[in-house]
């Protein structure tokens, strides 16, 4: 009953306020779920920050099935949410069919840069550039010269992370050995800390003493095992240095939170088009805070900052996996 009442009263209010346009932003999380400690959670953090600062409210949904992608887009658009912020490359196809039907709604999509649409803000991150920096740090911190990479689901996006990482490690030491593993071939690979832990142990037994996890919730297991076995690990997307102080070398930051925060702040006037956020835009980077300050030596810091400047100036070109669907220094 209460629902019906509140529904009717909302309907009445919105009828009264018709034209006043009170648009709430909406946020659609990808299948990994809202609290994955990385990609989706970063979006949630950005949205929460906006909500706290402005006192605004946002609508949200965690997708549970592929068919819900289009459904959620349409329902939010019809409910008047604006802008509608979506996460992940799998939203590209549903957006191309939904966005033209709602020309007055702004759509924001993270990790998509290649679709058509005047009312879509597409945000891509140069993950390979950020991964290059942490790969450089990993190889410099490694005593064995062997570094590990553990990806989540075996998809091109994660190969992009691994490829940049391998290039960074090779830049620090041309003889660097990189062991790369993917957690799995289904969506459960994003949330399988036990498997992440097993892979980390396997890589340690092959000599790896720094391991980079680009695997969503699976990475929690990688970081835990690395800490237990007294080797270093590297977090991803959000700053994960605090999870094991002094044992996480750094985190590859992908500022999804900033992208979401900015979009919500701009509201329905958000600028559309394609935006690639790389090192120059601080869209990606490496994390340095009180938890890992002792792990990053002055030489490492100098080297990584120099590499960062050179990538921004174009002097160093980090190859992208997408260009030829392969990686020059690493086989997947």
């Amino acid at each position, binding site marked *: *009953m*209460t*629902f*019906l009442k509140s529904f009717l009263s909302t309907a009445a209010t919105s009828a009264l306020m018709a034209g006043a346009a009170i648009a709430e932003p909406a946020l659609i999380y990808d*299948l990994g*779920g809202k609290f994955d400690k990385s990609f989706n959670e970063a979006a949630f953090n950005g949205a929460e920050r906006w909500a706290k600062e402005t006192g605004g409210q946002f609508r949200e*949904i*965690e997708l*549970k*099935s*592929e*068919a*819900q992608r*289009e*459904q*959620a887009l*349409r*329902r*939010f658009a019809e409910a008047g949410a604006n802008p509608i912020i979506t996460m992940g*490359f*799998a939203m*590209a*196809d549903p957006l191309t069919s939904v966005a033209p039907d709602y020309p007055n709604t702004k759509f924001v999509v993270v*990790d*998509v840069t*290649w679709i058509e649409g005047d009312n879509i803000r597409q945000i891509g991150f140069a993950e390979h550039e950020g991964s290059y920096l942490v790969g450089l740090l990993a190889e410099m911190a490694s005593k064995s010269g062997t570094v590990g990479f553990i990806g989540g689901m*075996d*998809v*091109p*996006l994660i190969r992009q992370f691994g490829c940049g990482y391998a290039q960074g490690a090779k830049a620090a030491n041309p003889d660097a050995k990189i062991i790369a593993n993917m957690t*799995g*071939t*289904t*969506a459960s690979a994003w949330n399988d800390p036990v498997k992440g832990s097993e892979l980390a142990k396997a890589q340690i037994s092959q000599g790896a003493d720094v391991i980079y996890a680009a695997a969503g919730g699976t990475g929690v297991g990688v970081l835990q095992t690395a800490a237990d076995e007294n080797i270093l690990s590297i977090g991803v997307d959000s700053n994960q240095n605090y999870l094991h102080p002094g044992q996480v070398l750094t985190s590859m930051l992908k500022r999804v939170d900033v992208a979401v925060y900015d979009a919500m702040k701009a509201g329905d006037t958000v600028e559309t088009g394609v935006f690639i956020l790389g090192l120059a835009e601080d869209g990606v980077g490496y994390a340095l805070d009180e938890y890992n300050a002792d792990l990053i030596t002055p030489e490492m810091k100098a080297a990584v900052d120099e590499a960062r400047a050179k990538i921004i100036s174009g002097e160093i070109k980090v190859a992208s996996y*997408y*260009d030829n*669907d392969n990686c020059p220094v690493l086989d997947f």
Partner: protein
Amino acid sequence: MDKMPKWADVVLIPLISLILATAISALVILGIGEDPVAAVKIMVSGALGSTLGWGYTLYYATNFMFTGLAVAVAFHARLFNIGGEGQAMLGGLGVAVACLYIPWPHWSLALIGAGTLAALFGAAWAAIPAWLQARRGSHIVITTIMFNFIAASVLNYLVVDIMRPKGARDTATARFPDSVHLPTLHELLAPIGVPFSKAGPANVSLLVAVAACLLIWLLIWRSRLGYEIRAYGHSETGALYAGISPVRITMITMLISGGLAGMMAINNVMGEAERLVLNATEEAGFIGIAVALMGRSHPLGVFLAAILFGFLYQGGAELALMTQIPSELIVVIQALVILFTGALDNMVRMPIEKLFVTLGRMRA
């Protein structure tokens, strides 16, 4: 009367199970401080209150009809096919191959062609565990579930490394050409003057699924092969004595089962996504087990149970959209229904059976 009547078996017991599951779900929703009555209202109006809702409910139900029938057919031969998931994935591959590489002049021909290939791929995937069971005695529960993982890896390799258009970042094949677009319920019903939402993904595959229910009923209860399958399921030694070959029945049953699971792809891959995405099956193969259990392996039961689960899926999505109820809790509600209707069936069945037997004795 020393047995309970048929209607109690088919209608009463599932109904009581359902009511119990709903009651406990309501308690859980109350426990997190939300209003269960409002929640049920949202689910019902969201899934059944509009043609858009029906479009999604029937779309999910179509998937579950195929996978539910697949499990049900195998049950009759006392084979537990947990591999519906993998067989449906391979079916998706069959549909993708048919739609991408063959120029079809009309959707109806494409549906027949793609459906056949989907069934063949699904059946082929079921054939290996079936052969291992029939000839080598490897338990089919273990082998079919392992084949799900192999199927996921095969699909990942083929879709990401072979079929993905160059440079595309989405883990999917190219879009199928327009000529293989299956008519949705909107397009089917519009000519006869019935308005149906354009956005609902339910399509002509629903009719194929219903036809499959009918055909499976004919097969199991009206054909010689069906009799052999049931005889084998009741008693292997008895069937052997009657001259029924266990190897032959195991193989044929699993081929039919795998074919049905594979056929699901005409709905989710060809009808809805119109391209093969990696995550296409979304555990419909596993839901099929619950659907078959709840439907007591009878095609009509499977049909009804599939619609119930379609309702739960669509209603759950609506609940996630309209309320602050966390999505984990929606999974809990779905799980409770599966638990009560599938796993805890005997908990309700035994007392009811006893009740009917006592009633029968008192009358006698």
